[in-house]
């Protein structure tokens, strides 16, 4: 299992789910998951999905520029560091963002998001 391939596959899955069906992100988080979204701290899959589905836009498209990953330690975790653009429907200019994920393996051989931190990159 090539870590780079895992990271890229996760990133593609995460953002395509975000852009097509935000509620579908629920199974990527668990009870102990943490999201910090523009400085606001949210804990647990339900609250995280509530936050993401209530963001003040209906349609969006993420375009990913960079994906970096590293193993986080002996438990098989992976840190993924992403930068890219977020285009909101009806907005002329895309927003630039950076995001980090700390993925932990599930017993079924996939990953869930333990830590998630999102920041827009303002000019």
């Amino acid at each position: 299992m090539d870590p780079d391939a895992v990271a890229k596959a996760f990133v593609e899955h995460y953002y395509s789910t975000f852009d097509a069906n935000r509620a579908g992100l629920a199974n990527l988080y668990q009870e102990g998951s943490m999201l910090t979204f523009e400085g606001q701290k949210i804990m647990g899959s339900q609250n995280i999905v509530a936050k993401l589905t209530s963001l003040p836009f209906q349609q969006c498209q993420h375009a990913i520029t960079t994906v970096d990953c590293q193993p986080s330690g002996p438990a098989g975790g992976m840190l993924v560091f992403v930068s890219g653009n977020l285009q909101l429907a009806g907005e002329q200019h895309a927003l630039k963002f950076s995001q980090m994920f700390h993925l932990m393996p599930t017993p079924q051989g996939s990953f869930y998001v333990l830590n998630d931190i999102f920041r827009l990159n303002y000019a």
Partner: protein
Amino acid sequence: MEEQVEMVGKAFVDHYYHLFDNNRTELVSLYQPTSMLTFEGQRIQGVDDISAKLNQLPFDQCRHVISTVDSQPSAFAGGVVVFVSGCLQLHGEEHPLRFSQMFHLIPTGQGSYFVQNDMFRLNYG
């Protein structure tokens, strides 16, 4: 729990960038043999190679100005993930460079932290 993690993150960030901007060779004290740095996509492992990379960056003087610091506990006993954004002003350059960086800090057991994971990216306009 959370407030303490935020304090650790901010204290670390202050210390890290102060060292970087004033005494870059001292950054070596924050890394261990298992440490990993990904700098603009280039992967580097271990204290010596990381130190060499940071000390050989093509500028002598720089100043980091930090805009945001977000921290969370990382699931390892006392580990902290820290996500930073800010500007990097290089001496002699007119415009600062925007950057994002993430650190995964692990307790040393002596009351401080070392950097197990470090990823740095410039944010181009």
